């Protein structure tokens, strides 16, 4: 009878392997191959339209340090405006952005990524930092006084407006596109909220390709 535990152990081990294999296969099924990036050249709508966007700003970043347009000089960047009381479009966009960085691979380092609040009254720098870092360490969180935020919203032609809710609470309507800016701080392209992942990655890659070699 003293072999019984051994037999049970062996059978259990063998079955565990089988169960494990089944579960691993089920939970980590290979993703379907992604479609190759669709053809078509990257055209800068901004250049065609002669839009001017961007300009000087002076805001606060992680740790309370000041962060200005001069800190972005010399490297292209993707800039997105949102707020942390945003349940849908902001986490979706930041999450997508983090995924696109992964897809860019080493090229991701050729760009900077900036997340500016449209809700400076509620988004202090600690909140913005924790929020941004949940998606990617690369995302630079920015906030400021209502006046400082107003100035950057004007410069980047970002629409932002409070929508009152019950109990004096509010949410925000705001422009949800990601603006792509060149190393000289000039507007290069835009990633629309409606853009598919491959389009977004193609636009980011084009921005990185145009970056000056450092």
């Amino acid at each position, binding site marked *: 009878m003293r072999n019984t535990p051994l037999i049970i152990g062996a059978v259990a081990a063998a*079955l565990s392997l089988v169960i494990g294999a089944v579960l691993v296969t089920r939970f980590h099924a290979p993703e379907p191959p992604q479609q190759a990036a669709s053809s078509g050249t990257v055209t800068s709508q901004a250049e065609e339209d002669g839009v001017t966007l961007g300009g000087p700003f002076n805001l606060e970043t992680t740790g309370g340090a000041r962060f200005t347009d001069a800190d972005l000089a010399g490297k292209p960047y993707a800039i997105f405006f949102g707020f*942390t009381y945003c349940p849908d479009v902001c986490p979706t966009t930041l999450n997508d952005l983090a995924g696109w960085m992964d897809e860019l691979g080493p090229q991701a380092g050729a760009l900077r990524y900036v997340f500016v609040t449209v809700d400076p009254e509620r988004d202090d720098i*600690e909140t913005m930092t924790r929020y941004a870092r949940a998606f990617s360490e690369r995302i630079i969180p920015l906030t400021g006084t209502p006046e400082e935020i107003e100035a950057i919203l004007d410069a980047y032609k970002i629409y932002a407006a409070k929508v009152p809710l019950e109990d004096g609470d509010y949410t925000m309507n705001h422009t949800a596109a990601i603006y792509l800016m060149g190393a000289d701080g000039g507007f290069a392209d835009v990633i629309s909220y409606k853009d598919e992942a491959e389009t977004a990655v193609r636009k980011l890659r084009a921005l990185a390709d145009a970056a000056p070699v450092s």
Partner: protein
Amino acid sequence: MRSTTLPYQAATAATLALIGLLAVGIYLIGLAPQAKAQSVKAGDLMIEQAWARATPPGARVGGGYLTITNHGAAPDRLIGGSVDFAERLEIHEMAMQGEVMKMRALPDGLEIPPGGAVTLKPGGYHLMFMGLKNALEQGARVPVTLAFERAGRVTVDLAVAGMGAKSHDGQGAHGGHGGHGGHGETKMQHNMQQQ
């Protein structure tokens, strides 16, 4: 490892049976939150695919999504509800107008037409949890109590999917997006552990 005596065979058979049962159990537990979101019946209403998005640290709001089907002959209306993990539940609608994201509260709630279904999903109608008391963690199940004009109050569990999930099973609505959601989820857990 072949045994010739009956007790050994009996023990092995019993073990096999037990482990088999265990395997089915584990499989079902694994299946439940992912593919089989909970379905709950309330009067003429059927509530299915109820889920929420994991929230980043520091977030004070969260979104909940589900599908409500009205099998009855009379219209019903989702008028509100409550959750333990947030101060308030509101029903909101998000819509894109060009590049501008617009959010509006629906103080009169949401009509569920007879014979019809309404789906609350990212980019559209959603349950808005205001004043989160704690973050919604991916993989958790959190109860929400919904209030309907006719069907009354009903509690349903929301399966918490990843931060960037676009549907209840965590898959993206379009080809490429699902993969990105996955990347972001891993990233978030990693970063949260660092804090």
